C-alpha cells in the first residue's frame, strides 16, 4: 500500500524548549493510526506540524508525495475543542458548507445537498438548521467531523476529538468514526492520551516518548474489523496490547525527571 503521509526526522522547538526531536513514521492509505504517549509529550504539536499549521524546524512531512509547508487540500483536522472550532454564527449545515472552501467547481446548491447527505451519515438528520450551540457536545463534534469529510478529505487528523464528550457518547462516537473512515475511505491519524481508545480504533498504534518526543514503538493491532465495544474489548489481543502500551507509558512516567 502506498504511503499517504510520511514524516521524516521532523523536529520542532519553541524557543529553548525542544518539543519534538527526530520523529519518523508513515501512514498507509486507508490505515487508522493512533498516536499515544504520556501527557504533555507534544502530540498536538506533532499534529499541527503534519497539518501544515506549524512549520517544522527540521525534517519534512509529505502528504501524497508533496512536502507540506502550508495546509494542503485533502487533509482535514478535527480538533478536541469542538465548541471553539465551529462558527457559532453559522448553522450546522452552513458550518459544513464553510468547510468546502476548496471545492471550487461545486455550486452552492450541490454543496448544500452534499452537506445534507454527510450530516445524515453522522446521524444529524433533522439538525441541519440548528446552530452548533443548540445541540449537545457529542453532536457538535459530529458536525465538525461532517465538515472535515465534506471537504473531500483523504486524511483525517483527529486531535483528541472525543476527550471532551461523556463516556457513553464516546463509545458511540468511536464506532461512528470507524464506520465513517470505512465509508469515506479515510486515512486517519488519531492523537489521544486514551490507550483503550487507541487500541480499540487503530490498525496501528504509535507510542511516543516524553519530550523531546520521538517514536519509541510502533505496534500493529491485528484485531479484525468491524470492531465491537463488548467483544473487541474482551479480545485477548486487545487486552494484551492495551497492557503493553500502558506499561510502556507508565515506565516512561517513572523515568521522567519532573512531570
Amino acid at each position: 500500500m502506498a504511503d499517504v503521509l510520511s514524516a521524516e526526522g521532523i523536529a520542532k522547538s519553541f524557543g529553548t524548549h525542544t518539543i519534538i526531536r527526530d520523529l519518523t513514521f508513515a501512514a498507509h492509505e486507508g490505515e487508522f493510526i493512533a498516536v499515544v504517549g504520556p501527557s504533555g509529550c507534544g502530540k498536538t504539536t506533532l499534529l499541527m506540524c503534519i497539518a501544515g499549521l506549524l512549520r517544522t524546524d527540521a525534517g519534512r512531512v509529505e502528504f501524497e508525495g508533496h512536502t507540506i509547508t502550508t495546509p494542503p487540500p485533502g487533509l482535514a483536522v478535527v480538533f478536541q475543542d469542538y465548541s471553539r472550532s465551529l462558527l457559532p454564527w453559522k448553522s450546522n449545515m452552513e458550518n459544513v458548507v464553510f468547510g468546502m472552501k476548496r471545492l471550487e467547481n461545486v455550486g452552492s446548491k450541490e454543496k448544500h445537498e452534499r452537506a445534507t447527505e454527510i450530516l445524515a451519515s453522522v446521524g444529524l438528520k433533522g439538525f441541519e438548521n440548528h446552530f452548533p450551540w443548540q445541540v449537545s457536545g457529542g453532536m457538535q463534534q459530529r458536525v465538525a467531523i461532517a465538515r472535515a469529510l465534506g471537504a473531500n478529505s483523504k486524511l483525517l487528523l483527529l486531535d483528541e476529538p472525543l476527550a471532551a464528550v461523556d463516556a457513553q457518547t464516546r463509545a458511540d462516537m468511536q464506532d461512528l468514526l470507524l464506520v465513517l473512515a470505512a465509508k469515506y475511505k479515510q486515512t486517519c491519524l488519531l492523537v489521544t492520551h486514551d490507550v483503550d481508545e487507541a487500541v480499540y480504533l487503530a490498525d496501528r498504534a504509535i507510542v511516543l516518548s516524553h519530550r523531546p518526543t520521538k517514536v519509541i514503538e510502533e505496534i500493529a493491532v491485528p484485531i479484525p474489523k468491524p470492531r465491537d465495544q463488548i467483544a473487541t474489548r474482551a479480545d485477548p489481543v486487545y487486552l494484551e496490547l492495551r497492557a503493553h502500551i500502558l506499561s510502556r507509558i507508565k515506565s516512561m512516567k517513572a523515568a521522567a525527571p519532573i512531570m
Partner: protein
Amino acid sequence: MNTTLRRLSGLLLFLLLWEGVSRSGLVLQDYFPPVTSILAAMAEEIRSPKFVENLLTTWTRTLGGLAIAIALGLGLAIVSARSPLLRRMLSPFVDMLRVLPPPAIVPLSIFVFGIGPKLYLFIVTFAAIWPIYINAVNAIGAPEPVLINTARSMGYGRNEILLRVRLPAALPEIFTGIRIGSGLALLGAVASEMIAASSGLGALLYDAGFTLRVKDMFALMFFIGLSGILLNAFVAAVRRWMIGWHIGLAAMGDHG
C-alpha cells in the same frame, strides 16, 4: 413584562418623590419645578413643529456622526488588525484623543470646519469613534486560535479569515463598543450644539437655561434623556438582529 414594570418602578418612585418635594415648599419651585409641570412643558413643546424640527436635527447629527464613527472605527480596526505596526503606531494617539472631552475640540474644529453641519458631524464622530475602534481592534486582534487554525486548514487565506471569521467572531464586542459610542455620540451632538449652534436640543437647552425658562430647561433635559433611551433601544434591536446567535449562545451557558 413583569421585569419592565420592576425596572420602571424605580423611575416612577423617583418622579413621585420629586413631585412631592417640589410641591412641599422645601425647595424653590422656580428652580425645581414639579414633574407634572415639566411634563406639561414637554407636551407643549412636542406640539410645536419648530421644536420637532430641532429634535430631528439633533437626532440626525447623532445618527449621522455615529454612522461615520462606526464606518471609520471598524475600517481602522480592520486595517490595524492586519498590521500590528500600524496598531502600535496609532495606540498613543488613541489613548490621548479618547480622553479628550468632545467640547474641548469644538474651538479648534470651528477653525477647520466653520459653523455648519460638518462641524457637528465631526464632533459627534470624534466623541463616538474611540470605544468603537478600541473594542473592535481588541476583539479582531485576539481571535480564538482553534477557529483560526480550523479555517487555515480548510484553505482560507489571511484576508478571508479576517473578513469571514475574525470580524464576525468579534461582532459581540464590536456591538459593546457601538453601544458605548452611541451614548457618546448624543453627548457630542448636544455639547457641540450648546457651544456652537443655533439649532438642535443643545442650543434650545442653552437658551432655555440662560433665559431662566426653568421648566423648558428641564423639559429639554428630559427629551435628551429620552433620546438616549431610544437610541440605546435602537442599537440593542440592531444587535439582536445581527448577532442573535451570540445572545442565544450566551443564554445556553457557553458550551451547550
